[in-house]
């Protein structure tokens, strides 16, 4: 439990210094876009944005997932890059209400 709390604390520190532009580049460089789309809209993988998981939960998931998505450990994705990616996802705006888009409203 202590180890987990420490991980969360470190994760919070990393997130606070994150950079959106670097995060956009890291999102592509590390292949996140492949399953989640360039703006995290989802596809084969889940929707990540807007409103990504809080950084702590996001970080724990990315590092330890045992599902179809492979875990991305520090050897292949640094804490800094991970925090930047989260910052990028957090910066993405909410989509418009579909009822405001004529093609989706069915006009």
């Amino acid at each position, binding site marked *: 439990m202590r180890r987990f709390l420490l991980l969360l604390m470190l994760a919070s520190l990393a997130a606070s210094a994150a950079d959106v532009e670097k995060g956009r580049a890291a999102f*592509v*460089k590390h*292949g996140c*876009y*492949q*399953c989640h*789309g*360039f*703006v995290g*809209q*989802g*596809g*084969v993988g889940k*929707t990540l944005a807007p409103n990504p998981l809080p950084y702590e939960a996001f970080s724990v998931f990315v590092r330890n997932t*045992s*599902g*179809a*998505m*492979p*875990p*991305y*450990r520090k*050897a*292949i994705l640094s804490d800094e890059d991970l925090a930047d990616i989260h910052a990028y996802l957090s910066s993405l705006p909410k*989509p*418009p*209400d*579909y009822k405001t*888009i004529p*093609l*989706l*409203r069915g006009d």
Partner: protein
Amino acid sequence: MAKSGRRRFLTGAVAAGALAPALAKAQAPGERKPSAVPPNGKVAAAESEVPAALAESRIKGVPGSDFMVDVIKTLDIKYLPANCASSYRGLHESLIDYGGNRTPEFLSCMHEESAVGMAHGYFKIAGRPLLTLCHGTVGLQHASMAIYNAYCDQVPVIVMGGNDLDAAHRPPGVPTIHSAQDINSLVRDFTKWDDTPVSLQHFAQSFVRAYKVAMTPPYGPVMISLDAGLQQEPIRTHNGEKLYIPRYVPTAPPQGDSGAVKEAARLLAAAERPVIVADRAARTPNGMKLLVQLAELLQAPVVDQFGRLNFPRTHYLSAPPAAIPRGDVILGLELTDFWGTVNSFTDNGEEGIGVNSTKIKPGTRLISIGALEVPARANYQNFQRFQTVDVSIAGDAEATLPALIEALRSAIPDARKSTIAKRGEAARKAHAEAQARTRQAAALAWDASPISTARLSMEVYHAVKDLDWSLVACDNISNWPHRLWPMKESHHFIGRSGGYGVGYSAPGSVGAALANRDLGRFSVSIQSDGDLMYAPGVLWTAARHKIPLLAVMHNNRGWHQELMHVQRMASFRNRVVNCGADMGPVGTSIQNPDIEYHKLAESMGWWAKGPIKDPKDLGPALKEAVAVVKSGQPALLNTWTQPR
């Protein structure tokens, strides 16, 4: 043996060991007539006299391939997409000169895989098979991937491969390299039937039988080896035999056993939460109507796996795969993969493999109706994992549905009818809510560049919605058209390749567009980049034969499935994947340079535009392209898209 005598030798070999002479005798004039079409004037004359023009020709008689054309014409095959080859030159010449290049009309193809793919797509709109010809060895090897797709997708295609069996008389050199003892062995594992006729009468029987076998559900491709000598040498008859053409009579599709159907009805009538899953159940538009009747009788959700469009997407009982785990009785109709329907496999690299788990609750009863219930071939594994079911019915689902519906009407007691009706009320509400959620999900990345696959789908739909449209290919765009377009008729979506052999969608869509052209219908495809590049010459065939098709590229600049696989392998192994100078792992990207698909299409006679990267530019470009296609030409838009 003299050259002139070699065919006589082959014919004699058949006469000695097979039924041909006996049949000829049994079908002599004056006796009870068989189901046979009499020979036309030319062939009849050939038995007693040779037309003057042909008598003066070097072959001194009516070529055997003229009779083959007579046989082929009885089956009213409209087109013959093929890449030309010397091994069928005799039949080729007869088709275009003696046969007038009508029924079938020869369509020039750049690749045998394209020809078979076109026949594949054509059938799924027209419901009638096409014939294709290929060079027996090298051409058939080119064709083989497309034949496998047709086999997996249960689509009839009649393939004939030219071959020169007579090693003593065939031309040496290349024609001999291109000959084989048994060309059909190349594709025997994934064709329904094949034959190597050694006489013209044998050919007539083989061709009609091949058509009949291909067109009996479960449909599938068939193969005939076409001997060069048989095509080229003059018609000869022996011992008073009369050449005849067997009449084709369609075979009624196999129907499920009545006792098993009643048991299935009993289980479904008693179910609290029945679920219907369909893959290739609706072979015809009537299949969809029957499935609607069945679903409404039970008020059961229908999960469509899109081998065909089995069920209207607009119907309130149309449901997503998430409905399957909720079922207590699951009816699978023509499922390719029943195991995968009720189980899941998480490809998570656990010890380098993955994890299996069930999707359904203990005690869930499973019913299967399908013509492929008993696999016919062992080598290729298209029959998927073995799944035990409670009621297993070997029979064509569409043909069995009327009996199942009737049995169900008797099996549902009046007391249960109000309970069943309540299921329908809940389904209506769930369907409306799901539609709203899907539309909101489509709004994500709406203005993104490259263009989101949801935006692409809706822009395309908006451009064609007022036409009698048919989506003839659509791969790897998160099923947005299936989720958002009001697909409610069979031709609104025709399924995919079947065997997942990449390279199907381009020729398949051209073939389907050919059939739609003849019906006055508008064809649109969402064309993957990697798929197009397997054999892009089919673009030329479409332009050459004036086949109108709107192809909108899903140009994500990669073989994206493989791109994800390699990325995941690297991450499972805790390694940074090597992308070189590309966005995806080395060997999986289609960039540096980017392919200018619009220029490629233009070079082959298409109207084309691109690259289109900003979603705002897509609507106006589509408007132009639709006008071009309505005028009878093919048009392509090179659109840069999000990965999926």
